[in-house]
């Protein structure tokens, strides 16, 4: 169905390995993981999101944004461990 796209090589433009090596690509993602989901910055971002959830959800009466920030907090807090478990499982 998408043969006309793949025939023209359009989808290949979306492949990141056309622009960077696999090693570099994996390094970027592990750096992103290290920055956002673990260590000091992960803890800081999660704490700010939790405070923001209360600030916007309760104080500023914006419950939608509060719930969104709360779920970001939960994601940052536990996704690192989940990814580690998944990597352990696949190895």
């Amino acid at each position, binding site marked *: 169905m998408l043969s006309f796209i793949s025939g023209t090589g359009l989808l290949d433009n979306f492949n990141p390995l056309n622009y960077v090596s696999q090693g570099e690509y994996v390094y970027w993602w592990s750096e992103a993981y290290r920055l956002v989901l673990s260590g000091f910055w992960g*803890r800081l971002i999660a704490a700010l999101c*939790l405070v923001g959830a*209360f600030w916007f959800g309760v104080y500023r009466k914006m419950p939608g944004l509060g719930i969104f920030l709360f779920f970001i907090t939960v994601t940052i807090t*536990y996704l*690192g461990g989940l990814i580690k478990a998944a990597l352990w499982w696949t190895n």
Partner: protein
Amino acid sequence: MALGKDLPPKQDGGLVIGTLGGAEKPTGLLTAISAIENYAMNERESGSVPHGFFTTQNRVSFFAVGFTGGLVSGLVAALLTPIAIGVIENYIPIFGSHEPSLYDQCFAFAVSLSFSLGYAAFISRVRGDYVGTASKSAINDLVSGLATGAVLKLIIALVGFHFMYFVVLAPQNIGPLLLKLHPLVKLPTLEWWFQWLGEFRHVFLISSYVIVLTTFLTVATPVVAIMLSVRGSRRRKMQEKKWG
């Protein structure tokens, strides 16, 4: 739960409440709180509405909004509590680390409490609107609904967590269940899972009693906030009388 005295109806016929009398039915927490603010504003302006003006349908719909919120927010907290206890007991990693610091342990606990407490704190925002018959009835029904939903959640969580501990994760049940995964999962991995689940299962027992604390805080937050607000406004009125 009559925490304060009703405002006397004014004699000038200046009642301006237009949305009462069963016409408006709150569909969610935001509409319920908006309606309460509306009732309170009108009752401050025009005095308390007569008893019975706040219909049974109104009462049930405010109760339903509180009930749904109490149940749903409580279930989110109930899901996060075993994870938080798992972090504290070093079974579950937090921020990708298996060795949580004191900050991490407190943070996990705070996250598990936050949703329920945030919901209760949001409801507590109506504490300043506890002024007339309609607004008091609406707030009382909303908070009673929240309390009922929270207690139902507590019962569900207590039964569910004990079921997990005594039935689902009991060694004699979890062993055969894990063995069914054998072709898909290697035996050493299954053995590790069996050991981990065997040690982790007591977390559910601890969680079922931590949930009691969460429920208490969820119910106490709006009740205490309203009581303090009513006491504060009484004191203010007494002071105003004293000063003439």
